[in-house]
């Protein structure tokens, strides 16, 4: 497959792995956080860990859109979905995220009309073909997916489609990173930057990381060679005593981001004063809601939601996993009470969640190599 296979070349991978080995200081331990769940998934899927020296540790970050949704929001979504005449739509991996009383999939089995869509535009299309029903789209994701929600809302408004609304759960990546860097739990040496968020916001918003926290960040693509090369670039910065934002993903990410997308975002959304993150608690100005001009397309405004805050299950340590403080297998319920088929925490649901990725792909240690 052109433009894909080139970035999965095993031979080149070994070359970069050799360069990494030549760059690291064998006497020290490196902790590098991949911010984005897409990277977590790629790291496990391609077993990139296998190619890194033992003293380079990859730590999973908070950038999995499904993982950061708190239980209360799922409950609110289900309450909307159960209203008479509603068709409730969301992305596939959101369906299995547990609320305090079951998941969307459970609510669907109990009779709510919940449908999986692949794009917010599919939800808008449903609204057009079902004019007598109210179609709600449960929007999730970082700045990567927010523009497609924004464009859909703009189209709905332009076409005067009145039976379409959005329950907005879009979040932004910088505030949780700042919260993470301010927390004393974790000592990190550098960041693999979220490539797809950066296609929208650019690399500039991350300059505070070298400036204020003296750590390197390399914006990275999602193919195995991209990730390896980004690790090498971070290690090289450390070796040369540089701290910068660098862009490995130049084939997709312009340093200034996508100005059109940013314009659309600022028209349709505004910052919420605060938003609850799964396991991380309330973080101020970390999420988006529909702006004044689009308030009539806001499902929360139109229908009202219970808005009850639900504490995370006691046993669940998703917060620590999201912050990279513990590895998935260090969680008390990992793999026993909490499994992909019966998840307690969100990190076990999405393929981008650190726990699901580790359970599905990584659950094999060196000593139990196949013989």
């Amino acid at each position, binding site marked *: 497959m052109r433009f894909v296979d080139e970035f999965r070349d095993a031979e080149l991978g070994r070359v970069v792995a050799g360069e990494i080995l030549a760059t690291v200081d064998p006497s020290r331990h490196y902790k590098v956080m991949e911010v984005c769940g897409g990277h977590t998934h790629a790291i496990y899927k391609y077993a990139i860990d296998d190619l890194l020296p033992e003293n380079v540790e990859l730590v999973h970050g908070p950038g999995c859109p499904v993982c950061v949704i708190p239980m209360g929001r799922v409950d609110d979504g289900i309450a909307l979905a159960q209203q008479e005449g509603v068709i409730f739509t969301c992305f596939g991996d959101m369906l*299995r995220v547990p609320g305090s009383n079951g998941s969307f999939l*459970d609510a669907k*089995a*109990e009779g709510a009309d919940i449908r999986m869509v*692949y794009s917010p535009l599919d939800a808008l299309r449903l609204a057009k073909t079902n004019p007598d029903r109210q179609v709600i789209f449960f929007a999730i994701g970082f700045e990567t997916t927010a523009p497609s929600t924004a464009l859909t809302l703009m189209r709905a408004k332009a076409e005067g489609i009145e039976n379409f609304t959005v329950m907005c759960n879009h979040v932004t990546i910088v505030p949780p990173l700042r919260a993470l860097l301010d927390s004393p739990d974790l000592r990190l040496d550098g960041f693999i930057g979220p490539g797809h968020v950066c296609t929208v916001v650019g690399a500039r918003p991350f300059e505070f990381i070298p400036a204020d926290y003296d750590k390197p960040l390399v914006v990275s693509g999602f193919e195995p060679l991209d990730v390896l090369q980004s690790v090498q670039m971070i290690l090289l910065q450390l070796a040369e005593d540089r701290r910068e934002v660098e862009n490995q993903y130049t084939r997709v990410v312009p340093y200034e981001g996508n100005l059109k997308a940013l314009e659309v975002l600022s028209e349709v959304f505004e910052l919420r004063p605060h938003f609850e993150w799964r396991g991380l608690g309330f973080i101020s100005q970390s999420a988006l809601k529909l702006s004044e001009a689009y308030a009539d397309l806001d499902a929360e405004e139109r229908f009202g939601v219970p808005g009850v805050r639900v504490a995370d299950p006691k046993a669940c340590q998703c917060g620590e996993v999201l912050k990279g403080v513990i590895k998935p297998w260090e969680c008390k319920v990992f793999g*026993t009470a909490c499994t992909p088929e019966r998840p307690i925490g969100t990190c076990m649901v999405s393929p981008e969640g650190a726990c699901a990725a580790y359970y599905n792909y990584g659950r094999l240690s060196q000593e139990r190599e*196949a013989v």
Partner: protein
Amino acid sequence: MSATREGREERVLGIIETARAKRPRFKDAHITMSHGAGGKATQSLIEGLFLPAFQSESLRELGDAGAVEADGTKLAMTTDTFVVKPTVFPGGTIGELAVNGTVNDLAAAGARPLALTVSLVLEEGLSADDLRVQVDAIAGAARAADVQIVAGDTKVVERGFCDSMYVCTTGIGVRDPRADMSTGALKPGDRVLVSGPVGDHGTAIMLARDEFEIESQIESDTCSLWPASDALMESAGSSLRCMRDATRGGVATVLNELARASEVAIVAREADVPIKPAVAGASELLGIDPLYVANEGRMVAFVAPEAAEAAVAALKSVPGCEEAADIGEVKTEPPGMVLIETAFGGKRVMDLLAGDPLPRIC
């Protein structure tokens, strides 16, 4: 990572494997779409509810078809219901699937298909022309597979109570004396063969549903696998340990089921799995692994190492199986697990799917 921490990880993984090896229990309050997806939820339904209730020796084997013996004649029986949407798709129709699906379950069990029954559930308002198309497709596929349709049933339900039409077929076949197969027969060193490129059917259906607006030339691979089964038995004889028709859940699910049944490990080599470029491309876009995508005309066979080369050659001589390949090997450790060597050079677990809400594909 320190030695003690590694030891702890090891212990945690041990606990998980013990939990995983236990027979799955069916504890859900409702049937969700996951129970039909062929992954872990389906497994919990079959092993946690059906097997204990039906108490049948033949069923416990969890083969593609059950063994029945009548006055010394060894028969195989199987049944399958088809609810695919849309009912006509590139490369096939629900009618063809219904015949080939049941024929293939028999073929995978090493049984020459003899006769089928066909039951139709039709939705009020279904156009007669659409029905005629499917009846012709059923007749055509039965002729091609050389099986008789010997009985049938028709039910009509009110509009909205079924999605245009569902088809159920039941098949009976004679178990071939050359076959000596069992799901528990895999031994370390055995090779894993596939009869052709994987993922065509499921990808064709997903794209035919028009939800992605991707145009493609991908066609379903639906066909009778009896010729492939015949060629494998002829070539490998008793060295043929087991065959599986890689339908729902794809090749990855077959490998997991067999690794569990035989208490062995299976290591597949990603780079050796034949996948058509268009299927690889579509899967890439959709974020789906073709190894988990359904096939309707692909056999997975497990053969003793000394018979593997000849078995691949025999498969390749069967029309439609020209791209048959040796894709992996049976190992000892870790038992019950499937690993895949990625083309990038790492190795990882390839587990059963945890029940993604996939569209109706068969």
